[in-house]
């Protein structure tokens, strides 16, 4: 089992997200904070609300980046700690009690997108990354 270790533990606050994602220009870019600093990963328009994409950080790590209906963006490690496969970006985004989660497409465990904690197994979590849109 992999648990959160090296990655940023700060909540994935979306510094550029004001809840009015529509105000962001069409050409806006999504950036994720890697160890070496903010890295652009994709255009905001590459993100379909409710779905994720996989991206590479400059150090070669795989992350999963999501956008919700309200326009908020999230990033977690792409690796599903239960199976070892790099697939979380292909999971479905959901919400429970107002908090966003992704369900692994393999065995459907859910991970809180802000804390990385697995909602179905307290002992497991995934690394989370700060995201901003600009």
């Amino acid at each position, binding site marked *: 089992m992999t648990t959160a270790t090296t990655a940023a533990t700060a909540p994935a606050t979306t510094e550029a997200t004001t809840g009015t994602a529509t105000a962001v220009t069409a050409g806006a870019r999504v950036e994720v904070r890697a160890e070496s600093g903010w890295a652009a990963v994709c255009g905001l328009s590459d993100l379909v609300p409710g779905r994720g994409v996989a991206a590479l950080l400059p150090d*070669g790590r795989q992350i999963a980046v999501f956008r919700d209906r309200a326009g908020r963006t999230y990033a977690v490690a792409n690796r599903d700690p239960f199976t070892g496969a790099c697939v979380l970006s292909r999971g479905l985004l959901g*919400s429970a009690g107002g908090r966003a989660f992704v369900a692994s497409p393999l065995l459907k465990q859910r991970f809180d997108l802000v804390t990385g904690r697995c909602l179905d197994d307290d002992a497991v979590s995934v690394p989370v990354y700060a995201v901003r849109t600009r």
Partner: protein
Amino acid sequence: MPRTPRPTIVLVGHGMVGQRFLEELANREVTGRARVVVLCEEPRPAYDRVQLTSYFSGRTPEELSLVDEGFMERHGIELRLGDPAVAIDREARTVTSRAGLEIGYDTLVLATGSYPFVPPVPGSDSTGCFVYRTVEDLLAVEEYAGRSRVGTVVGGGLLGLEAAGALSGLGLETHIVEFNPRLMALQVDEGGGAALRRTVEGMGLTVHTGVGGKEITAGPDGAVTGMTLSDGSAIATDLVVFSAGVRPRDELARGCGLQVGERGGIVVDERCRTADAAVYAVGECARTADGMVYGLVAPGYEMARVAAGAIAGEMDATGDAGDAGASFTGADTSTKLKLLGVDVASFGDALGRTEGCLDVVYSDSRAGVYRKLVVASDGTLLGGVLVGDAEAYGTLRPLTGSVPPVAPEQLVLPAGAGAPAALGPSALPDDAVVCSCHNVTKGAVRAAVTDHACSTVPEVKKCTKAGTGCGSCVKVLTKLVDDELEASGVTVDKGLCGCFAHTRGELYEIVRTRRLSTFAELLDGHGREEARGGEGCEVCKPAVASIIASLAPALGASGYVLDGEQAALQDTNDHHLANLQRNGSYSVVPRIPGGEITPEKLIVIGEVARDFGLYTKITGGQRIDLFGARVDQLPAIWARLVEAGFESGHAYGKALRTVKSCVGQTWCRYGVQDSVRMAIDLELRYRGLRAPHKLKGAVSGCQRECAEARGKDFGVIATASGWNLYVGGNGGATPRHADLLAKDLSDAELVRLIDRFLMFYIRTADRLERTAAWLERIEGGLDHVRDVVVHDSLGLCAELEALMAGHVANYRDEWAATLEDPERLRRFVSFVNAPDAPDPSVRFVAEREQVRPDLALLSGPDIPVRRLEALEGSATR
């Protein structure tokens, strides 16, 4: 009293009551202490005679069996099939069997049942005259009906109507001849009989009442040609079934000097014992202490219990001999059945024979509904008759003998006609018998939930046996279990998920009637309060996507599953039009309709697999699965496949998978129809149809059933004159044989019925509920589904057919459509910011000359990708 340390009990007759008697002995641990020998006339062990007619709707004789596998062996019972008793010597205490076996007994139990009464009509021994009592009788009727056009049933009682339903179901023009002035004269009154008659006639059967058969005419070959009635009229009929009541089989008892009743039946006392203390009689062959001969199974079961208790008591068995003193003094003859699809129930003093009793009657001849309650002047409910809608039976019967908490007229009025909230099972007292087949009280059902921790109806059935007899109480049982669970603080939430309080079926109706084409509208308008405005979840998003896809043509929505908001709702399999495997790679399954494929296409599949390094395996559905494709390889793989004429096989979707076939008439020397052509036609018709779960079909070219069609959601088996359609089959963890829905269909009739069946399933099933589980769950089961899709009882068929026509007209291959559209292709990359970089975690190793996932890689540390220079450039695409 036992003469020997290990006494011998001989049971003569192995019908329903005989088997129950054996179970009662086993429960009391008598079988371990006594030798038990059973002489059975029929060639098969006890089966459910009450459900006999269900043979014609696809139940096999094996499925009707009442004997659990290994029961006889486990309890050391010696069962001699096809070897009836022919003589009893009470002096020597021996029974002689037809095979010549002479068995000494300490205790003899007669459970010989009854025989069908054949009225003394000249010609009744002609070829083509039958009775209707055993599996063998049914087999004979079925065989003869195959070469008959008109069938006549003599007798309009319970069994007569069942037999008439069977003949009608076999496609015969059917007549019913009843000597009494009305149908079911023993159970229902004149009004009920009239309602019943109208409904039966409405189904195309001809009813003759108040007349008897005078003569049966036969041709020179001795086969029936017609029947003359007592009023001089005649019916040209090819087949006659006598179902004019039964008579107790008491000839063995007469032969050994035991007393029989004036109108037959072995005379027994309250403990089911004859004047000879070593001989008992139970079931339909017994004339009980109240002077009755009961022809129903519930009293027979009660007699089996009483006799077993008495015998156990004599032996001083250590088992539960607490009921050794139980007695049988009379029984409830209430009945509820579905005859020819009509609910008929009668209970208590149905015919109003109690002195000074009063009637409360509701009659609606337009709807074929008749309800009558018989009450005493003080309001005590004495009995009643329900025809056309016997819903209230489960509540009314247990209330018989008490003053119901609401006025009688409110109990017969239809809901909404000024009646207050219907009197539900909740109003029953604890000692009310809910299941009369097994004598289970409401209190026992409640105890099963509270004391035995049962939390579902199947668990309660297993624990109490309630609902496992005729099944008429299951609805009441369900309500009681729900009530009890709720009372103990368990909330029974039938909602789809945390976002919706509705079931999938309810959401389907909302989407359909309000013409919603987006998930957001549905969630924000109809979701649970706390979920509105949210994201939904991994349960409801794909379920709603499937509903919208099924209804797409009717909603004017795009059926393409990757467009717009739909894209965000789909599970990854639907999103990438491929099946995600454990290491993050995908498998690819091109459609091979009916399993038929040209050598050229086989070569293309081989070449594609070779060129992309894919693992290949033949599936159970007669096609080929290609494993190990990275997400970024899918478009290139499919470009090759589409060019060669393949299309999506929808292996990734909750959709039609395959329609399997055997090779059929074209090549097979046994085949009677072209099963391959039909399988291809069906697969092409339903390809791409989104459903609550995957759908599988099969077509067999003859009764040998090589395509295993009865293991499919819809299975088609060829007959000499067309196709038989079976539905609700399943393999997997809980296998289920499909049930016969309709017989001898033409091509067009077959397609029309499957259209309706599938659309009705899609409309009403729960999420991830296969047709097998759906058929088991929905109220009324197969009969209800047949009413809806064959007889159009809900007036839905035109709409169901239109929905399917819309699906067929709107079908497009999803992969061809994806390849044509650069926007749709954009998702098929491993990384959004490095579209050319393959995912390094998807690696393979060799095994048996092919590849398999490198699982060691998955359990290791993260593998960084070594190709970072492209990052900046690609992020701005």
